[in-house]
């Protein structure tokens, strides 16, 4: 019996999913199917972006898959113009018996779902745990997290009284108790040998956090700008937290904002470069199906002039492990503690803090700032009042001067997000920031 020709159109983020090669083996081994592969023609730009960030493993990873498909003469490049124009896709896909689109991004799903009526053989999947999961509208917001009822894995451990912890990798780590930083989930301490240890509060010393950290230890995250856990730490054989690299000489975004991003000889353009680096690092995580979750200025660090680090990775949303904490000013929805622990957030949810933080970095004000609304974290109805045109302005206060100093596109991206919820995805933001910086550098 003749095999069915099946085209897999693979959105770039899929290549970075956990052990994608195992899924690929399964796809290739199906005896009834002759598989073919297609990618967006602009994938080379993504590879170049990775290279420019020094993320050689990721760039190499995608390039290797492309060589693999090309060597088998089974690779097509398709022009989609950022998934806005699928004419080329329609033309090329008609010659196959079946067409599968694999993507982790809702915007790509949204772009392709309209073709289903014209192309009954089209199916759209995401990749989860090395399996293909068909995209459905209803699945967008109801992914359930790995959740344990009454989860208290370690009892009776009082972190205030702990002076040292044990790491299987690094041995005993003595804590500098005077150098403590407290947060929602626990307290971080410097160690005497240049590490940073996070010890969980009693409510967070649970089985889910332990399993999440074990999963993180298995994952291949090689981005210097993400402070990934280096090892799990224990006290008297009890799970206590994790150890990470210490970040020296860095300021969090909140402090940087209060300083007007004027540390050392930083220039205004550095603010834009910091934004760009921040977005590229978030993009790196999203491509690996990781959400920062508790994304807030405290968790983003800048080493002047323009290196950006994301910290507190223990609270990231990783696969089915939720991010159990949030800062209400940096979430679009109001979450209960139970919702945070039981439901997974979507990439789209993460665009609220992304837009807000980006806005605050560029504008040095809240997006909901106005003369009557000057209190931090109390935005009332979150009304976005920055105008798109200068026409009706009677005065030009500083915050509007900075607003109009941005490019037209950036203003549009913010305006449509904060007024209509229309998301501009990271790839477009990155492109626009790069263009802006290039123009300003002349």
């Amino acid at each position, binding site marked *: 019996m003749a095999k069915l020709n099946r085209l897999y159109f693979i959105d770039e983020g899929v290549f970075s999913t956990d052990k994608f090669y195992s899924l690929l083996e399964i796809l290739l081994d199906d005896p009834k199917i002759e598989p073919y592969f297609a990618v967006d023609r602009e994938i080379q730009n993504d590879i170049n972006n990775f290279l420019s960030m020094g993320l050689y493993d990721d760039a190499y990873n995608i390039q290797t898959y492309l060589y693999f498909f090309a060597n088998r003469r089974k690779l097509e490049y398709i022009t989609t113009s950022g998934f806005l124009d699928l004419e080329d896709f329609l033309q090329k896909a008609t010659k196959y018996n079946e067409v599968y689109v694999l993507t982790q991004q809702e915007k790509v799903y949204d772009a392709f779902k309209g073709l289903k009526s014209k192309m009954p053989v089209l199916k759209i999947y995401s990749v989860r745990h090395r399996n293909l999961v068909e995209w459905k509208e209803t699945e967008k917001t109801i992914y359930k997290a790995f959740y344990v009822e009454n989860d208290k894995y370690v009892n009776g451990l009082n972190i205030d009284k702990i002076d040292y912890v044990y790491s299987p990798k690094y041995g005993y780590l003595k804590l500098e108790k005077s150098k403590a930083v*407290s947060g929602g989930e626990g307290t971080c301490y410097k160690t005497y040998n240049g590490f940073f240890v996070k010890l969980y509060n009693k409510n967070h010393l649970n089985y889910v956090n332990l399993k999440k950290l074990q999963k993180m230890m298995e994952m291949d995250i090689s981005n210097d700008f993400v402070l990934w856990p280096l090892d799990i730490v224990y006290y008297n054989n009890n799970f206590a937290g994790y150890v990470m690299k210490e970040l020296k000489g860095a300021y969090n975004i*909140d*402090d940087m*904002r*209060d*300083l*007007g991003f*004027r540390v050392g000889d930083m*220039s*205004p*353009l550095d603010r834009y470069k910091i934004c760009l680096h921040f977005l590229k690092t978030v993009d790196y995580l999203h491509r690996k199906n990781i959400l920062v979750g508790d994304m807030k200025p*405290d968790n983003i660090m800048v080493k002047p002039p323009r290196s950006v680090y994301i910290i507190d990775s223990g609270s990231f949303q990783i696969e089915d492990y939720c991010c159990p904490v949030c*800062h209400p000013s940096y979430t679009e929805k109001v979450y209960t503690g139970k919702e945070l622990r039981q439901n997974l957030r979507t990439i789209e949810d993460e665009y609220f803090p992304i837009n807000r933080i980006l806005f605050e970095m560029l504008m*040095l*004000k*809240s997006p909901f*700032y106005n*003369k*009557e609304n*000057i*209190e*931090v*974290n*109390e935005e009332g109805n979150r009304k976005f009042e920055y105008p798109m045109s200068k026409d009706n302005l009677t005065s*030009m*206060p*500083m*915050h509007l*001067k*900075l607003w*109009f*100093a*941005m490019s037209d596109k950036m203003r549009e991206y913010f305006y449509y997000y904060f007024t209509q919820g229309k998301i501009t995805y990271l790839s477009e933001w990155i492109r626009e920031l790069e263009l802006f910086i290039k123009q*300003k550098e002349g």
Partner: protein
Amino acid sequence: MADYIDDEVNFGDWSSLDINVSRRVPICLVLDRSGSMDEKDGSQLTKIEELNKNLKEFLDYVRGNAKASRICDICIISFGGVDEVDVVCGYTNIKDLKYAPLKPYGRTPMGAAVMKAMDLLKLRRNYYRSNDIEHYKPIMLIMTDGLPTDNYMAAATEFSRMVQAKEVKVFPVGIGKNFNKEVLRKFSPLVEPKTITSADNFSKLFKLLSASSSNPNDDSLDKWFQDEA
């Protein structure tokens, strides 16, 4: 600064730029210095000595912490004497703050002191508004060891309205065993008054206040007060 502003002009076609980016934390301490504060109650030191010692440590912390010294606007109001309300300092940056230890004497005009604190807070908010300065939720710490000796009800009613309207976050503290919790509750409809009866309690209160001064998102002080409830 000037260079920075000049550079910023290159991002638009504007001139005469000025910029207020630092967000402020207004902190007001309304402190009892009535005669009874000269007594000991659960500590080696008298209540006023404990208060002065911890207040100094708090101010030293703010002075020594780069962020706190930049963002905190501190107001200290004391009440005692013959119905005296002293503004030790209005909302002031730590570098301009002059402070001498409080001397205990006389009565407890807490109503008038809170009224003064509300007036100063309203003025401060207007100042922030007219200068394009964002600020965190104002913090007000009210400390007393006894009963108000003035007519405090009008002040309590107005202040409670401000608290309910989330215009200010109040932390009411009763020192020792002789204060009236019911009275303090009238100033604080949302947060249960905290009783402090030892040197450790004093120290913890001001340490947590210090943490809020350098990190306004730190809610340890709120949590400590919630424990009381």
